[in-house]
């Protein structure tokens, strides 16, 4: 069937902010979908609240609404745009849920909108576990025994019938949020009550546990003619019980015979038929009993997913793009395979390599929460690696994580006693792979490790082989390795650094010897067909082969290598990928052949058609050098991929690699606090008093001169890792003792902390002569809260023109003085009309995509062109001080619900996973949109709980007065109530958590609290406030923890009461 001509305008829903379980894989899929549909001549209307995405670039869709993905908001867009069709299967669960709600409200029917790609009944069957179980039984497939529970009582009864342990799965939640494995009645009650709370329909499934079974995923596509293909099979290294997003996964499936795998293929296609997926990509998950081959269907997602992004990157088959084309009428045989261009997309990719994905976690940021991995996803990102063997791919994936592992070894595991180790490996965690390696290193039999972990012996044998090889290498030493043996080591994926560790040598010595022996990597191609047909695209990986057959092609144009940002983590995510993608576009247009290097399968940068050539490789010095030596680029871009490429920039330059844009010397100048302070002194630019300390004693001495409070942090970190505010000698001393673990080689910085100052984020371009200030963002939360976690507004809403001019001028002077060629980011604090420089980042910052959307100036593209030798004068940029008829607000999205037990207060260490943008006529309306986009319910009436710390007692009265004036009832704790009564504001006093019942806990549990204002006391972390904040998270009550935030929220409520929100298309702002 050819392209449909009866529809013209298609509404595409994105997935909103990056959250755990729903990350930038949906930018990748949404971008592919929008491009494919626009390419087919359709008008595409996009709704996505996430400004950091490529899909929300004004060029990607026809009409781009950076608006909340809620039924209310999307209905407003529908009323304006009148689309013919809705494509809901590209934006994860958020988009599906929104589509279901739009359908339920009759919006789709009222506006005559057809759902394409998947239909509402199939979404329901995919998501409603009871319907799904029934459907599976219809086609003769087994599902885990399961019962629906709508109350705690029903949950207990179901568990008794099925027998513990059971899995608790809430209906309709992201990444299995609120679910978990219950081994005891206590655990059951805890998990079930949380699950009932989190499920939008108040429903959980109590399910037979399949712990220890193999977990296999099939990525399936189907078209309207009924053609079905399996794009990829994925096997989880961790058996059932760990969420697939938190598992190490391997493609293709390794331990099933053809008979078993084909059975799963047949089942997968039958599942799609039965669920009624008309066309598109779906994911079907199976559990396979390792002792009998018995198969149970776990779930299916009638949409593209994280796994389908992984499958696309693992095979070169663009699932999202094809799914979009199928949704508008094409059949698989009508679409050409992008890679071969000679064969159709209707086939099943064959791969001739092994792909390993390893999740990246951020537990160090969420102290107090359990690190055990469960059926509830907790990882914040992932790295993928390609090798010719599992051993090679695993070791490459491990070092791709960039968390200090050069190989399969972790000191904590090495230090553990045998008894401890036995306990450790029995519990799934982010460290288990290293603990398993350690157990094998101690020569524990594979059978025993299998017993303890449930990991299939095949994986354990392969890891044991790595350990045997380690021992061989250590025994022979570097001098004992001849070329064949060194080649064998590299074929197993050993990094030079790991070889150096094993041989007691330095990495550069290993590197030098490797070169002398002629052991160097070769280029291989990801071509979907295992070499059967010629590939027309340049999607590559490196490996080692005897014979050195390399598929490298010489360049027709000068090549530029762009180093991207690696796996997503808190503090370094999609924003940097966005910058790298823009650089690839801009430099391609400048006449370069662009070469992208990255190892993150979730991103747009790792799409084979984003750049001219793609290398899916780790971003370590060794791997980058390998690509450099093969590609011989005229320049390498290190300032757009966050801290990852910055960290190796100096070493690259020392090796003679040409760095494009800002040079490593300038990077060092900005990052070396002492040198930077001297520069600020020379330029007579004020900055908070600061000093550097290496020991607790030095720090305490320094504190005497600067005075408390102090902002303390280790050098060379991103996302404020390890950052804190200390108020006393005791806190400072204990901070210094802990901080030494973060980065032992680097000292700790101590800065005077400017309480209550307004913080600014400034992003600017510099070409060495001219400077263009792209955006000045005013933070909502005051200084001391990490800029990544703070809401901010463009343009500024409270600064005087004098201050703004001062900030621009200071930025200009700094950029020129530091020798920036490209982007820089400066953070300022404004206190008492004085502008202080807090820090300068000589690279693209997290706010660049937001700036670009808000201001209409794509800064990253211009930065790349500056690096290629262009000047700002050539760009015809709009004046910096032009007026804007709107405000854009960026708000951070916090992952608290994923990490029960951790404190939810904001601080100098970044903890947010993503961001949303709200855009409207006034600041309060724009801010209100960000609240809607994060799905914080803004209660328009009810009772407000107010409890503020002593510093905020003065400023609470106006806020409370406004609330009272708007008709809210106020309850307050003793101290706050006293202040309010003194100000003549009616309020009811309520007992705090630690005070006798009835207290605030009862009020929350009875559902009497609409929202809460609770500002944490200066430095206590585990008091009443902590418990209140945790309860707010678990009960889904909107909570404000800073006065500035409270003020903004009240303005938003006032604005919302006056009138409704209006959608804005980015294309209309220009």
């Amino acid at each position, binding site marked *: 069937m050819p392209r449909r001509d009866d529809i013209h305008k298609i509404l595409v829903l994105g997935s909103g902010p990056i959250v755990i379980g729903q990350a930038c894989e949906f930018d990748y899929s949404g971008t592919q979908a929008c491009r494919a549909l626009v390419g087919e001549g359709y008008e595409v209307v996009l709704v996505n609240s996430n400004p950091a995405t490529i899909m929300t670039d004004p060029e990607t869709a026809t009409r781009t609404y950076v608006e909340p993905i809620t039924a209310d908001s999307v209905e407003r867009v529908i009323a304006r745009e009148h689309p013919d069709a809705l494509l809901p299967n590209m934006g994860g669960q958020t988009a599906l849920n929104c589509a279901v709600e739009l359908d339920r409200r009759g919006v789709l029917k009222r506006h005559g909108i057809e759902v394409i790609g998947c239909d509402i009944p199939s979404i329901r069957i995919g998501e409603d576990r009871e319907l799904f179980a029934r459907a599976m039984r219809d086609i003769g497939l087994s599902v885990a025994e399961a019962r629906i529970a709508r109350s705690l009582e029903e949950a207990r009864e179901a568990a008794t019938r099925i027998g513990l342990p059971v899995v608790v799965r809430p209906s309709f939640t992201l990444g299995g949020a609120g679910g978990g494995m219950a081994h005891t009645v206590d655990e059951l009650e805890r998990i079930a009550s949380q699950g009932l709370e989190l499920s939008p329909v108040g429903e959980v499934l109590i399910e037979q546990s399949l712990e220890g079974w193999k977990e296999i995923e099939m990525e399936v596509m189907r078209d309207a*003619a009924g*053609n079905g293909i*399996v794009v990829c099979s994925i096997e989880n290294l961790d058996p059932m019980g760990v969420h697939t997003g938190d598992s190490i996964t391997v493609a*293709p*499936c*390794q*331990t*099933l*015979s*053809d*008979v078993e795998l*084909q*059975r799963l*293929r*047949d089942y997968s296609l*039958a599942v799609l038929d039965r669920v009624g997926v008309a066309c598109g990509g779906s994911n079907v998950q199976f559990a396979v009993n*390792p*002792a009998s*081959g018995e198969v149970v269907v776990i779930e299916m997602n009638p949409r593209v997913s994280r796994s389908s992004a992984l499958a696309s990157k693992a095979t070169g088959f663009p699932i999202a793009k094809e799914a979009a084309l199928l949704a508008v009428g094409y059949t698989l*045989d009508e679409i050409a395979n992008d890679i071969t261009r000679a*064969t*159709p997309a*209707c*086939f*099943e*990719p*064959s*791969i*001739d*390599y*092994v792909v390993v994905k390893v999740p990246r976690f951020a537990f160090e940021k969420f102290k107090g929460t359990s690190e055990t991995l469960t059926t509830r996803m907790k990882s914040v990102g992932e790295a993928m690696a390609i090798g*010719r*063997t*599992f051993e090679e791919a695993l070791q490459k994936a491990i070092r791709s994580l960039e968390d200090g592992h050069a190989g399969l070894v972790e000191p904590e595991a090495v230090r553990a006693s045998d008894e401890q180790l036995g306990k450790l490996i029995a519990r799934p965690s982010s460290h288990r792979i290293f603990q398993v390696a350690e157990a094998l290193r101690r020569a524990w039999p594979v059978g025993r490790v299998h017993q303890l972990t449930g990991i*299939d*012996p*095949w994986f354990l*044998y392969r890891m044991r*082989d790595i350990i*045997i*090889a380690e021992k*061989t*290498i250590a025994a022979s030493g570097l001098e004992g390795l001849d070329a*064949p*043996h060194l080649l*064998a*080591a590299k*074929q*197993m994926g050993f990094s030079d650094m790991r070889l150096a560790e094993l041989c007691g040598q330095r990495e550069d010595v290993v590197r030098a010897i490797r070169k002398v022996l002629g052991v160097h990597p070769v280029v*291989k191609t990801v071509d979907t*067909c*295992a*070499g*059967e*047909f010629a590939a027309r695209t340049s999607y590559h990986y490196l490996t080692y*082969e*005897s*014979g050195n*057959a390399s*598929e490298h092609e010489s360049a027709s144009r000068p090549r530029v290598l762009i180093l991207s940002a690696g796996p997503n983590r808190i503090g370094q995510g999609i924003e940097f990928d966005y910058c790298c993608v823009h650089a690839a576009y801009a430099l391609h247009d400048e006449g370069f052949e662009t070469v992208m290097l990255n190892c993150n399968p979730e991103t747009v940068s790792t799409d084979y058609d984003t750049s001219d050539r793609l290398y899916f490789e780790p971003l370590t010095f060794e791997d980058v050098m390998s690509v450099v030596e093969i590609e011989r680029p005229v320049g390498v871009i290190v300032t757009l991929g966050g801290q990852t490429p910055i960290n190796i920039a100096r070493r690259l330059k020392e090796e003679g690699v040409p760095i494009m844009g800002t040079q490593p010397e300038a990077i060092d100048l900005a990052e070396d606090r002492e040198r930077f302070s001297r520069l600020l002194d020379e330029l007579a630019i004020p900055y908070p008093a600061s000093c550097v300390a290496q020991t607790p004693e030095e720090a305490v001495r320094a504190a005497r001169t600067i005075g408390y409070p102090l902002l303390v942090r280790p050098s060379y970190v991103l996302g404020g890792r390890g950052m804190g505010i200390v108020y006393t000698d005791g806190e400072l001393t204990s901070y210094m003792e802990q901080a030494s673990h973060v980065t032992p080689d680097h000292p700790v910085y101590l800065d005077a902390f400017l309480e209550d100052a307004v913080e600014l984020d400034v992003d600017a371009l510099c070409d060495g002569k001219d400077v263009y200030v792209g955006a000045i963002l005013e933070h909502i939360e005051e200084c001391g809260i990490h800029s990544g976690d703070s809401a901010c507004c463009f343009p500024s809403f409270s600064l005087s023109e004098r201050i703004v001019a001062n900030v621009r001028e200071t930025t200009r002077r700094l950029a020129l003085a530091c020798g920036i060629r490209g982007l820089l980011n400066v953070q300022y604090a404004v206190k008492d009309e004085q502008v202080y420089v807090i820090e300068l980042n000589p690279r693209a910052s997290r706010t660049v995509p937001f700036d670009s959307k808000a201001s209409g100036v794509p800064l990253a593209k211009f930065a790349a062109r500056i690096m290629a030798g262009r000047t700002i004068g050539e760009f015809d940029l709009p004046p910096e001080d032009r007026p804007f008829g709107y405000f854009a607000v960026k708000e951070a999205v916090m992952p608290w619900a994923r990490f029960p037990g951790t404190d939810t207060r904001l601080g100098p260490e970044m903890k947010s996973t993503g961001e949303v943008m709200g855009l409207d006529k006034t600041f309060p309306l724009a801010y209100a949109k960000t609240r809607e986009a994060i799905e914080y319910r803004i209660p328009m009436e009810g009772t407000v709980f107010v409890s503020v710390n002593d510093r905020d007692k003065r400023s609470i009265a106006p806020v409370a007065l406004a609330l009272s004036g708007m008709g809210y009832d106020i309850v307050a704790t003793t101290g706050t109530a006293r202040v309010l009564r003194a100000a003549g504001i009616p309020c009811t006093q309520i007992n705090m958590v630690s005070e006798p019942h009835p207290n605030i806990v009862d009020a929350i549990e009875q559902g009497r609290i609409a929202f809460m204002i609770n500002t944490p006391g200066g430095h206590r972390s585990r008091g009443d406030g902590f418990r209140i904040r945790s309860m707010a998270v678990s009960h889904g009550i909107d909570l404000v923890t800073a006065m500035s935030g409270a003020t903004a929220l009240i303005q938003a409520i006032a604005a919302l009461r006056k009138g409704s929100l209006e959608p804005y298309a980015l294309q209309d702002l220009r």
Partner: protein
Amino acid sequence: MNLLVSEGRSPALLALEDGTTFAGWSAGAAGETFGEVVFNTSMTGYQEILSDPSYAGQIVTLTYPQVGNYGICEDDFQAPRLHLCGLVVRDMCHTPSNWRSVASLPELLRSREVVAIEGVDTRALTLRIRGGGAMRAAISTTDLDPKSLVARVRRSSGISDRNHVAHVSCGIARTERVDGAVKKRVVAYDCGMKKGILDGLTSLGCEVRVVPWNTPAREVLALDPDGVFFSNGPGDPSQVWATVEAAREILGEKPVFGICLGSQIVTLAARGRIEKLPYGHHGGNEPVMNLFTGRVEITSQNHNFGTVFQSLGPLVPEESGGLSAHEKELRAWSRRGVAPVVRNPLWGRIQLTHVNLNDGTPEGMRFLDIPAFCCQYHPEARPGPSDASYFFDSFLRLMEGRNDFLAPDANDGRSAYAQAR
């Protein structure tokens, strides 16, 4: 297995007739083997591939790099003996894991005396075969001198110089009985028949009389079977003249079904032409358009020779969408949604039913004026997807005298054969 894990293994050498050599280690029996080197892109199913008699005379390269992961499972053999010449892999697994596994792959290769080599850059080898076509080659654990081995490869005989079918076919006839009621009685010419095909027939209630490749037609017709089947098998079909002769006598007398080599035998029996494909189809992901249903089947394939559809006769315009000139490229029929018909001087009208979407080669045909049809790929899969398993039901329908034996509903849902798996 990596060199650092196991020292002291025997080296081995792979040499191609174009002069390329690959050094590696022995991963099977010691010794030497000569044959035609081909590559197979299936990611699983090495055991079914090794035991497929169609690989007689060939050295098989597996493009998936880690082989032997789930060991050897008794039920998965496609023939009692291994007929291939040799095996080339990148990394051999000596410590497999699967609940059905009874041995490791290298153990099997040693006990069955199959020479194999590992440590080869199989992707480089595959690209070489893609460029140069299927070539003569050798694996040796005794002659490790590249010059010497290449010279000997160049002196070795080619795959078409020998009748490999005679070597792999059963020596004496036997009967495969079915468990339940016998629906139909079939005679199967065993040219190297896979067990999966036999299972496909018996699971539908066909009692199968398996006969040697050169059994005269009169002996078969004397049995008065309900249908006659021509199996898959190795090598060049021009070597199996006896079977072609038999097919010519049986066509029109009894319902006929042919798979793979069997399909080529039917072509030759209709005086059609056979061509050798540059590097053949060997894998489990070949897309085939079923011109009746308009649906694509993902198929399992293993052949180096194929039918030239245009050689079977001139087009019948009124049954070919009005066209009287042959399309050079059969995919044009798929795009047009027409199943063209030719007039064959011997058997009347023959219709093209299936086309390979990768390269436009013919994959299936049926005879309109006599009860016969054939397919070039492997509906029994093993290894590979079972999308085409309806072919066995179709044979049953044909024997029942139904004209609509290939009708669209034949491949709705999964056939009884697929269910039985």
